[in-house]
């Protein structure tokens, strides 16, 4: 769990809202990449579900 950065505030903790499960935060279709807060698009996962 060691921080991967030299930022003075190195950790981002995200809390999801209602009618969600966290996928919209670090997950499937364009949320925040848990490897470092960059854009993350993975449409394959949507295709898999459908």
């Amino acid at each position, binding site marked *: *769990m*060691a*921080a*991967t*950065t*030299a*930022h*003075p*505030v*190195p*950790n*981002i*903790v*995200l*809390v*999801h*809202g*209602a*009618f*969600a*499960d*966290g*996928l*919209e*935060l*670090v997950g*499937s*279709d*364009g*949320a*925040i*990449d*848990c*490897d*470092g*807060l*960059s*854009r*993350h*698009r993975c449409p394959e996962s*949507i295709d898999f*579900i*459908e």
Partner: protein
Amino acid sequence: MGYHVTAVQNPLTSLSDDVIATERVLRRQKGDVLLVGHSWAGAVITQAGNASNVKGLVYLSALVPDSGESAADLLARLKAPMTGLSPDADGLLWLDDPAQFHHVMGADLAMSNARFLSSVQQPIAAVCFAAKVKHAAWHDKPSWYLQTIDDQALPYPVQQTIARQIGARTLSIRSSHLSLISQPDAVAKFIDRAASESER
């Protein structure tokens, strides 16, 4: 951008349960934290943000009660009732009609995406909205608020009022309630900006 990022799997069963889940994750962090909450989770981080390692609060289209206030109190005070929710006999609120989900949460998303998100959603216990925040962390810590102009879940003017009342630094973007999905770049940049400004 090089941050260590964690998403809390908060259960949406009560304000207290969500705060406890968030505090567990906060205790796992090595170093300072920027705490981010979307929508309902604005209430959660307003309470959990009192933890000593939290250096700033980022609200994304969020409900932000004051000390001694609940999310329901806030919505009543701002005359912004929630609509489109479907209660069940167990005290849970659902938004599980895909078309309604699309309209309320993410009209700027593809319908296929809205169906997916609707099908994996967690309902929220109605008691969440009645629980009062003990002490609102935004009184003591810097805050940022991302306002979403095309929001059908929490109207933009209501978000503006909330952001003004808590003294948050703001950004407005053209997005539905689910800006994390429709505009991930803008959201990531906003969080990065907050992290940078919280260092000062």
